[in-house]
């Protein structure tokens, strides 16, 4: 009898050992109760953040959290502290308080672990804070310190933290691309946002990315959406009626039946492009076309948004100028065939426009992932080789000589990031560890020469 029970128990238990352990992580992004001090203050303006806070900071207190140095960058409404320690980052807001102090507070996180907590810092010396409160944009110097404390979890911060401005950051805008790998974090991270969601695009920018790679698939009714896998797997989506292949369902069926892992809607490519252009300062997007069918609808959208940007940049109002590059990614020969077909269609349409005396619409630019020589032959503007093929400095230089940028994918480990930055000196790297990449680039990277097509 005992033998029977044991044997059966082992048989029944085996699926638990065999089953994959990838379940949605417990995520709790810490927050100050009642919105913290930020709620009582007046938020600083975008230019104040950009001019007065960005730089390389020395960590004089709180090294166990951030290491010895941290890069500080700013985005609309946020100040981000980026380190290469556990790919950690802090996303903070900044506001002038009624007593003329400037508070910089928010949360810190190690995305690969469940560690997170609160940060509350104050700007000193007081004269700098006063200038900021007066609406000025004081340039930082080595007297600028951010002094305060941090905590674990939702505890009120008590552990000392102090960052002192050391020097300016290396040039990166328009030069070096920290490209988020379909969002700010990996599926297995603790960031609380789903890959390829609108929310992860927003977080990616705050964790150090200035460009993003997004995965494009088309629904049964031909609408390009952001989704990585061919299947609606439970690792990416939830919903009882959300099963099967992405291209088997119409957009209405997807919208009605599926939510992303952390509760976001599966975005259309159009909504994502609109959000990136209107709500972020990201400089570009690399559309990783997962199927040949997605190339033409993506290309139409790129044409539509490029026309809009051109109109904005050519009008008399410089305040609405926006530089944003969109590139069709070609990962394999199937998609390349789709690209050829799409190009033929777009060129035929331009032919018709020419015959009708209308302006032509530029063909979108492409990024080819696999063969350096094909990049030149296909007249693409960028090469996106896998890092597993090695740094390939000769190919990087060969393409650079003809004005083609190189963006390696996908490097997450610090030692490989360091190796590729120093050996290949690429124009960018796709990563899920944007904070690590950005900070490492600032520490040891070489500023690439500008490449016209990416400007």
């Amino acid at each position: 009898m005992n033998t029977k029970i044991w044997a059966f128990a082992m048989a029944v238990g085996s699926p638990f050992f065999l089953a994959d352990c990838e379940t949605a992580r417990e995520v709790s992004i810490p927050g100050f109760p009642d919105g913290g001090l930020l709620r009582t203050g007046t938020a600083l303006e975008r230019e104040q953040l950009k001019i007065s806070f960005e730089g390389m900071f020395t960590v004089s207190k709180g090294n166990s959290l951030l290491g010895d140095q941290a890069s500080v960058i700013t985005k609309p409404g946020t100040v981000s502290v980026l380190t290469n320690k556990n790919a950690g980052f802090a996303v903070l807001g900044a506001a002038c308080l009624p007593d003329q102090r400037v508070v910089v507070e928010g949360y810190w996180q190690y995305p690969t672990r469940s560690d997170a907590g609160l940060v509350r810092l104050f700007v000193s010396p007081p004269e700098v804070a006063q200038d900021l409160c007066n609406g000025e944009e004081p340039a930082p110097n080595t007297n600028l310190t951010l002094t305060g404390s941090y905590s674990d979890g939702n505890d009120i911060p008590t552990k000392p933290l102090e960052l002192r401005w050391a020097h300016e950051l290396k040039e990166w805008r328009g030069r070096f691309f920290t490209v988020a790998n379909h969002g700010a974090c990996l599926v297995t991270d603790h960031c609380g946002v789903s890959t390829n969601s609108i929310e992860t695009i927003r977080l990616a920018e705050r964790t150090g990315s200035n460009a993003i790679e997004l995965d494009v698939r088309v629904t049964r009714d031909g609408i390009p959406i952001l989704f990585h896998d061919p299947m609606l797997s439970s690792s990416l989506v939830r919903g009882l009626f959300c099963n099967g292949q992405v291209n088997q369902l119409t957009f209405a069926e997807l919208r009605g039946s599926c939510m992303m892992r952390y509760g976001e809607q599966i975005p259309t490519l159009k909504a994502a492009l609109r959000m990136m252009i209107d709500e972020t300062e990201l400089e570009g997007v690399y559309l990783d076309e997962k199927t040949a069918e997605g190339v033409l609808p993506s290309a139409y959208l790129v044409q539509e948004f490029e026309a809009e940007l051109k109109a904005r940049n050519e009008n008399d109002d410089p305040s609405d100028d926006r530089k944003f590059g969109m590139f069709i990614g070609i990962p394999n020969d199937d998609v390349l065939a789709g690209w050829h077909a799409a190009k033929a269609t777009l060129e035929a349409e331009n032919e018709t426009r020419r015959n009708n005396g209308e302006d032509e619409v530029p063909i979108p630019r492409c990024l080819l992932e696999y063969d350096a020589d094909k990049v030149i032959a296909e007249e693409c503007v960028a090469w996106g080789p896998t890092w597993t093929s090695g740094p390939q400095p000769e190919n990087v230089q060969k393409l650079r000589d003809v004005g083609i940028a190189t963006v390696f994918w996908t490097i997450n480990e610090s030692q490989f990031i360091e190796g590729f930055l120093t050996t290949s000196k690429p124009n960018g790297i796709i990563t899920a560890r944007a904070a690590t990449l950005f900070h490492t680039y600032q520490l040891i990277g070489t500023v690439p020469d500008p490449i016209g097509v990416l400007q």
Partner: protein
Amino acid sequence: MKHTLYALVVLQALVATSAFAQGPLAQGRSTQVADSRAPLSEPHPVHSPASSSAPTSAIPSASESVEAGSPKSPAVELASLELFGTIAPTVVQGEPANPHLTSSFRRVGFYTEAGVAYRSKYFLDPFLSVGYASLASGDTTLPDNEYFSAGTLEQHLGSWVLSPGITSDIWRFRLRFGIGLAIVKQSFSFQGASNTGTQLPLVWEAGLGFNFYEVPRFRIDAEARFVEAKGADVSFWMLGITARGDVVTF
């Protein structure tokens, strides 16, 4: 309703099969084996490996033991080929993606299954079963959108389950475990257009049955079972009736 009818047909077929198995063609064996799992009233000679590999004088064979009237003679069980069928209400786990847009939702469904099992002389009995579950349905009201106008999306979730596995009888309880393949099928209807999507994840199932009715060659169990198609994130419980009949004993 359609699934209920299918289930009844399967059950009827099983009962008929069982009756056939007990008919004139099977009488010759069934007279010897009142219950294929019970010890024979007249012990059969059993071939013992010891009789061929060791001197018979040193170790008496089982048949010799029987002949000698030893009280420790092994109980002899016969194997059989068994057909079975299950009908069960189901409760599926999980929630619709947009509860705030879901105007109706049903998570109680129905499962029917048919299968064949080899009831071996040993404690593990292999089986192969095929079942279909109508698991859930719902209506989701979608608001106006750039890509479609507002309307109600009707959803239905079903799954075929093809599962080899093993069972084991412990007293009147029957443990069941299987790993196989599911064909998870969802159907949609929106603004007059219908569509179906399928997915083929691995599935595993575990169940506990209780035999509450037994006559020669025919048994009925009540059974609770959990089925999970992990790759599709579909899992459900069922509590049903399983009818089992021996078609061949050997």
